[in-house]
């Protein structure tokens, strides 16, 4: 039991979007509404009627992006950084800010040719944000299903 919880902790804070199943009824937010007599009330609800398709749709888009990136990485068209970037729901500029590099550099590192020549320190910056080790980042076999 303790080992399991430890493992969970060491896995980090980033949600695994790829395998995320949303429990739609778990999380409740305050919703206001108008009664027929013109008074306003509020209560905790998990739903406003059309919530599920919208949230599902937003996750679907993310998942699709991850899937496409994964295929491309396995084919060797782009570097694993692109895959992990999609996995963290990040875009280029945000990733550049987190790693402290210029956007064009990050974009350049998406090329496999450039990626294999990268220094350990640069890889470390990416790995820290993705919450994986440098070896995992380098190893393409790691992301195979």
């Amino acid at each position: 039991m303790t080992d399991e919880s430890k493992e969970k902790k060491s896995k980090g804070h980033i949600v695994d979007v790829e395998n995320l199943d949303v429990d739609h009824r778990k999380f409740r937010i305050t919703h206001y509404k108008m009664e027929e007599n013109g008074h306003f009330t509020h209560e905790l609800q998990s739903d406003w009627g059309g919530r599920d398709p919208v949230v599902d749709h937003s996750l679907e888009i993310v998942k699709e992006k991850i899937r496409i990136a994964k295929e491309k990485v396995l084919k060797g068209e782009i570097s694993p950084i692109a895959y992990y970037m999609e996995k963290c729901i990040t875009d280029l500029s945000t990733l550049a800010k987190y790693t402290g590099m210029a956007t064009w550099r990050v974009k350049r590192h998406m090329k496999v040719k450039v990626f294999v020549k990268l220094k350990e320190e640069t890889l470390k910056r990416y790995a820290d944000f993705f919450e994986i080790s440098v070896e995992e980042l380098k190893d393409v076999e790691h992301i195979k299903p």
Partner: protein
Amino acid sequence: MKLNFDHMQLSAHCESGATVNMLGYYNIKISEPMVFGIGAGYYFGHLPFMKMNYSPATTFRALPGLCFSRACKNLGIAYERNTYSNPHKAMDELDRVLDKGIPVGVQVGVFHLPFFPPEYRMHYNMHNMVIYGKENDTYFVADSIVEGENKITFDELMRVRYAKGAFAPEGKMYYMKKIPETLDFKLPAIRGIKKTCHEMLDLPFWMVGVKGIRFYAKQLRKWPAKKGNKVASQYLMQSILSLEEIGTGGAGYRFIYGAFLNEAADLLQREELKELSIEMGEAGDRWRNFSYQGARNCKNRSEPEFSYDLLADIILDCADREEQIFKKLKKIKF
């Protein structure tokens, strides 16, 4: 040490919720709609040049931080709001203020926030919460959106306070320094209403206010032809998310504002405000109508169930209603 924070209220909007909770600590009873109205958090803006999640940003609220500062100014409360370039200095400052016995509000990014539900853990940096205690390495958090008592460790807090990306918080924290002995909500409420009327009607920019709603309808009509059904449904989804999901209390704060007008009517003894609150509720229903139908378009992406023209017509109707409401509201002499 831990401050006495038993009365924490859950609320829809994180920033007004944080303000309510901070005021509640000083034994001031105020409802969330009241804070939202006094702080003039009501707004509309459609900004196609700003992308959120690869989609044009649509906002239904004022900029983060404005609701708190305006509410404090209008109520005559002295407050302090700062950002820090050095993370360690920011944490030291937080500890120092907490030791004085003052609850502190912080702006955070939700991506690394551990107690937040997983489906909302996107790069969204405008969340607000109140920190009311520290024990060893753990901080106690009153998050007005998540139920229950939440805790966060030192490292995690530092990380979320220094989230990067659009609207990065940069360690922003705010707290109240001095509160007047007697608080009267009448004048602040009037000031809040005036400010909102000004922002919705008079700003000379076509992307914000009532003009902004019309502009949004115009853009929405163009999406399917310009971008294709798939991208259009993605854009639509993003605007529905900011309309209904991210702590708006339903229909893009329209219901909260209606509740505020209703409360203000009792406070100021004005019957007109009560009528306007009902109209505001009806406008909210119309927005809700839009999000229901839009949600169905999201379900069936390639062949939209409702045409985008129809959706745009609903929004134009909303714009007309809101223009009517705010014009009437502006005319009332207090």
